[in-house]
């Protein structure tokens, strides 16, 4: 993979710096030359990825996994109903989260994938969600499946239903969660994401309480994270923001995270889905 090799050490450092300001706590004394070099590296990086997003590799792996018989029942996921009927992947992500009668719950893509792996393939739920996020040599099956499914909604209008009482409940609950202030810093999502044009260090913070701000963020996630060399799901994004919020960790596929994603999806409703994205 040409891509991986060309990202030099210094670029990784620069990108990391931008992604994790805290990693560069002692960087206050960077010289002008160093800063210029950083900008050059970032430009070089932009040129490099112009011909491809590494998320594609995850999409391919996910597609193969989708079509391969797996689990105790040796079944594929081709019978999985993501909301548009069993086996329909095209455009399905753009209509999630939604209420599913068979589970009696509103589900986002990730919790729905878990349901399909458990019900169709006979996998053990606790095992499936034990390590949902890849790290170093460990690659997550769920993240690959997510990459495949979201890639099949590229260009489709984001329009999750808001009709069933449980869908309305999820939206209202997600909005509440977004505003919920707690923890040693008194943060809520709104602390960092409810005004236009704000930044943490140099990272732009989308205003997720507006349609346009929510659209920009929601339409470009899930995404390949260059600083981590890893494809990341929406649940991962929520997780890492809860970490920065100094909260404990939310359960994978839990009601509260699904509600939060429902809120964001409704805020972005009407915009075209553009992912999988590529981020710092």
């Amino acid at each position, binding site marked *: 993979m040409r891509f991986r090799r060309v990202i030099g050490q210094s670029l990784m450092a620069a990108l990391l710096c931008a992604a994790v300001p805290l990693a560069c706590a002692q960087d206050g004394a960077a010289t002008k030359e160093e800063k210029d070099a950083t900008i050059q590296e970032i430009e070089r990086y932009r040129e490099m990825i112009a011909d491809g997003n590494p998320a594609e590799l995850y999409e391919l792996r996910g597609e193969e996994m989708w079509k391969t018989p797996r689990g105790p029942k040796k079944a594929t996921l081709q019978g999985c109903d993501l909301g548009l009927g069993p086996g329909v992947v095209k455009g399905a992500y753009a209509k999630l989260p939604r209420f599913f009668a068979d589970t009696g719950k509103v589900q986002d893509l990730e919790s729905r994938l878990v349901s399909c792996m458990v019900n169709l393939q006979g996998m053990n739920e606790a095992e499936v969600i034990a390590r949902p996020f890849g790290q170093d040599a460990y690659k997550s099956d769920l993240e690959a499946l997510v990459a495949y499914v979201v890639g099949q909604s590229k260009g489709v209008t984001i329009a999750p239903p808001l009709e069933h009482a449980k869908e309305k409940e999820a939206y209202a609950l997600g909005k509440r969660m977004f505003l919920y202030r707690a923890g040693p810093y008194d943060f809520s999502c709104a602390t*960092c994401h409810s005004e236009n044009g704000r930044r943490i260090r140099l990272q732009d913070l989308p205003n997720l309480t507006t349609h346009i701000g929510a659209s920009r963020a929601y339409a470009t996630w899930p995404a390949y994270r260059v600083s981590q060399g890893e494809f990341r799901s929406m649940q991962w994004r929520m997780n890492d923001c809860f970490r920065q919020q100094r909260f*404990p960790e939310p359960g994978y596929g839990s009601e509260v995270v699904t509600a939060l994603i429902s809120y964001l999806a409704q805020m972005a409703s009407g915009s075209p889905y553009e992912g999988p994205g590529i981020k710092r």
Partner: protein
Amino acid sequence: MKRHALAALLCGLGLAGCATMDDGAAEKRLVEILKRDFHEKGIAKLDRLDQDAVQQSCTKFNNNPPHGGPGGIDRLEAEQMAAIKWPADGKFIGDWKNGEKLAQDGRGMTWTDKAGAPAGGNCYNCHQLAPKELSFGTIGPSLYHYGKSRGNSPEVQKYTFGKIFNAKAYNLCTNMPRFGYHGVLTEAQIKDLVALLLDPASPVNN
């Protein structure tokens, strides 16, 4: 109830921002499920989900509570003010060089931070301070020339110490954390930060 019928009608018409579950019901449900849906990780325990009176009021009123009443701004700000621990030696100014290090340091309190590891001040995450640091956030106002513009009087020193110790005593629902109140920074560290803001020799004022 008439109000509900109207809300349902507006929702039915597909008007944006509608929620049939009213905010009260969502609030109740959230409290019910929070501790079920989160789990502790590292130093981030579940008790972090419990709200104190300030967090509760600011959440409930979307950061704009009324002035009066038990959950109102006046009562809660007074309580927060009374909880500030002023330095016993009456001195507010420490070492600005150490203050600059603290202002740069954004570590602390996340589930990836080690237990007992010292936390930084995070100030540059939200504020511009010394002009040579170009990587600054904008959630808070620029503090460049903070001391130069308002002087170094005892009142200004006291206000600055109090603000960093407990920003909510002055502005109940501010986005700024309560560094002293929550035990994130020590008295000595807060003095160093006051020096960063007020010492005439500090880069913030040059």
